[in-house]
C-alpha cells in the first residue's frame, strides 16, 4: 500500500491527525476536537512511527462500539494509505494529493446506494433527491417521503429497520404499565410510614428499620400472530421485521406465523444474527405465501399455546382478513381467546386504503371480539400505533 502524500501545508502530526478525525467525522463517527487532542496525547505514549501501533492506539481511542471497531481498519487505510481514492477508481496512475477537505470514503455508502437502487426498482417514480449527491442527505429526504407510501412498495433494508424500531417502541409502551397501588419494596422511593411505625414499637418507639414502597410493575405480555399467506405476501417482509422488533424488546413476547398451519417462531426471531434468523425462518416456513385459514390457526393457537394467554396478555393479529375457512370457526376461536387474553388487537394493512370497508366475512365475524381494528398500511401508521394503543 502506498502512503498518502499530504500537501506541504499540512505539516506536522497535529494537522494530519486533525484531518483524520475530520475524515472519521464525515464517515459518521462521533468524534470532535477533544478526541483529536486525546489522539495526539495517545501518540506521545506509544511508538508513533510504527503504523501498527498507531492503528491500534487510534482504534482503541476513537472506536465507540463493535461496528466501528470492525470497520476502523478500512477507514484508517482510506486516509493514511489512499485506499479511499483507490476504491473510487480514480487517480491510480499517480499518488493522489490529499486535499485539505477530508475525502469521504465512498465505499462506506456502498450498501446504502444499493438499497436506494432497490427501492427505485420497486417504485420507479421516485426520482427526487438525485441531484443531492453522496452526502447522506439523499437518504434522509427519501425516508421522509417513503414514510407515507404503502408498505407494498417498500422492501429495502431501511424500511425494515424502521418497522422494527416502530415495533420496539410500541412494545415498550405497551409493556410499561405500573399498578396504582403501592407495595413494599427494597429500594422504592417512598417511605412506608405505617410499616415503619409498626416496627418501631418493638424498638421502644424509635424508627430504626426503614421500609419503603413503590408502584410495582404490571407488565403486559405481547403475543403476535402474523399472517404470511399469499394475499399478505407483499407485506410480509415488513411485518416480519415488525414482529421481530416486538419479540426482541423483551423476553416474554411470543411470536407466531400462520398460513394454513400455525407455527411458533419466537426462538428464530430472537436470534441476534439476522442472516441466521432469516435462514431458520425460511426453513420453517414451507407454505409461505399459500392460502389462509385464520380460524384453524387461531384454534390451534388456543389449544396448544393457550397457556401463553394470561390476564395481562395483549394479542396482536396481523392479517388482511382474507380467509378460506369458515367465519364461524374464526368467531368461535376468537371468543375462546377473548376469555383468556386481556386485549385483542387486529392490525390490518388494507384498512389504510381509500374505499376499503371491512366487509369480508371473516372480518365481519371477528369484529365483535376485537378491542381495536387498526390500520397498518404505512410506516407512519405503524409508528402511530403507539398513540392508538394508549387509548385502548
Amino acid at each position, binding site marked *: 500500500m502506498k502512503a498518502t502524500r499530504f500537501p506541504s501545508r499540512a505539516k506536522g502530526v497535529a494537522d494530519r491527525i486533525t484531518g483524520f478525525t475530520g475524515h472519521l467525522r464525515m464517515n459518521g463517527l*462521533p468524534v470532535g476536537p477533544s478526541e483529536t487532542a486525546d489522539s495526539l496525547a495517545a501518540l506521545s*505514549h*506509544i511508538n508513533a512511527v510504527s503504523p501498527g501501533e498507531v492503528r*491500534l492506539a487510534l482504534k*482503541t481511542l476513537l472506536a*465507540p462500539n463493535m461496528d466501528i471497531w470492525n470497520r476502523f481498519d478500512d477507514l484508517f487505510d482510506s486516509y493514511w494509505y489512499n485506499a479511499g481514492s483507490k476504491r473510487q477508481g480514480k487517480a491510480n496512475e499517480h499518488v493522489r494529493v490529499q486535499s485539505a477537505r477530508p475525502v469521504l470514503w465512498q465505499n462506506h455508502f456502498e450498501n446504502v446506494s444499493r438499497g436506494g437502487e432497490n427501492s427505485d426498482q420497486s417504485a420507479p417514480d421516485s426520482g427526487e433527491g438525485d441531484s443531492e449527491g453522496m452526502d447522506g442527505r439523499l437518504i434522509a429526504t427519501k425516508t421522509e417521503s417513503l414514510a407515507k407510501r404503502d408498505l407494498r412498495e417498500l422492501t429495502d433494508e431501511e424500511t425494515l429497520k424502521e418497522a422494527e424500531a416502530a415495533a420496539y417502541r410500541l412494545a415498550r409502551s405497551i409493556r410499561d404499565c405500573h399498578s396504582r397501588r403501592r407495595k413494599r419494596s427494597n429500594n422504592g422511593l417512598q417511605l412506608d410510614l405505617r410499616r415503619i411505625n409498626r416496627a418501631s414499637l418493638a424498638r421502644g418507639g424509635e424508627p430504626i428499620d*426503614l421500609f419503603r414502597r413503590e408502584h410495582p410493575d404490571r407488565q403486559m405480555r405481547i403475543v403476535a400472530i402474523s399472517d404470511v399467506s399469499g394475499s399478505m405476501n407483499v407485506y410480509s417482509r415488513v411485518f416480519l421485521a415488525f414482529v421481530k422488533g416486538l419479540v426482541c424488546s423483551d423476553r416474554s413476547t411470543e411470536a407466531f406465523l400462520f398460513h394454513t398451519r400455525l407455527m411458533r417462531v419466537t426462538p428464530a426471531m430472537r436470534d441476534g444474527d439476522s442472516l441466521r434468523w432469516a435462514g431458520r425462518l425460511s426453513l420453517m416456513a414451507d407454505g409461505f405465501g399459500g392460502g389462509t385459514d385464520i380460524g384453524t390457526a387461531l384454534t390451534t393457537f388456543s389449544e396448544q399455546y393457550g397457556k401463553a394467554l394470561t390476564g395481562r396478555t395483549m394479542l396482536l393479529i396481523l392479517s388482511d382478513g382474507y380467509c378460506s375457512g369458515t367465519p364461524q370457526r374464526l368467531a368461535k376461536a376468537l371468543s375462546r381467546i377473548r376469555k383468556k387474553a386481556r386485549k385483542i388487537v387486529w392490525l390490518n394493512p388494507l384498512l389504510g386504503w381509500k374505499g376499503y370497508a371491512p366487509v369480508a366475512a371473516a372480518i365481519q365475524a371477528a369484529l365483535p371480539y376485537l378491542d381495536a381494528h387498526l390500520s397498518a398500511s404505512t410506516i407512519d401508521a405503524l409508528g402511530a400505533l403507539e398513540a392508538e394503543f394508549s387509548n385502548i
Partner: protein
Amino acid sequence: MAGEPLAMALHLSLALQRPLLLEGPAGVGKTEIAKAMSEVLATRLIRLQCYEGLDSSHAIYEWNYQRQLLAIRADGASEDELFGEKYLLRRPLLEAISQETSPVLLIDEIDRADEEFEAFLLEVLSDFQITIPETGTVRAKSRPVVILTANGTRDLSDALRRRCLYSYIDYPGHSEELEILKSRAPGLEARLAAQIIGVVQSLRREDLEKKPGIAEMLDWAAALSGLGINDLGNDRSVVQATLVCLLKTSADSAAVPVEVMDRLIGRAA
C-alpha cells in the same frame, strides 16, 4: 496473556488514565483481565457487579442510618458528627476513589444497570469525584484504573462510550487458547491439550445457543484430567458425559450427540 489490540488498550488506559470499556461474548475472560491487572499492578481490586435496579446507595455511598439514630439516642450527637466519616458506608465507587494508591476498579456488566445509573457513572468516570450533599465533594486521592465490561444486554449511551477507551475481545485463536490452557493446567499432556482446544474451537463454530467460553474449556480440561483420560478418542462414553462442562442448555446438549462429537474429535486429532 493478551492479544496485541488488548495490550495496546491496557497500555493506553494506564498512560492516559482513561477508563477502558471491554465488550465481547460471554466467557472470553473480560472480568479476568481486571483481576490480572490488579495482580500485575499489585493493588486492590474493587469490584462493582451491576444488576437491574442498582442505585447510587448501593454503588456509591449510604449513611448508616441505624448507627446515626443510636448515636443521637445514646450520646446526643450533634449534626456535624452525624454526617461524618464514621457514619458513612462506603460502597465500591466511593471506596475506589478514596484509596491512597490507585486500585483497579472493575465495573462488571455495566449494561445490566439502568440508564440512570449510567448517568451517575459519568461524573465519577470523567472527573473522578463524587458529590455527597451533606459533606461536599470528594475528590480522588489517586485515580483508579477503571475497567468496564459489557455483554450487549442493551446499548450503552454515547456519552459513556465517549469517555472510555474501547476494545472488543473475541474468542482467542487456536494457538492463543492453547497457550492459555498450558499456563493454567501445566500438567496436561500436549496431545490431549491440542485435542481439547481443537474440539472446543470447532464446537464454537457449531450452531449453539451458548457457545463454550474459556472458563468452560478449562473446566472441561480439569474434568478430563481428573477422570484420567489421556485421549479423547478412547473413552467415548465418558467423554460424552463430561460435555456437561461445555454445553449448558438442553437444546445444546441435544445438538451435539455422539456422532457430532466423533466428527469433531476426528477432526481435532
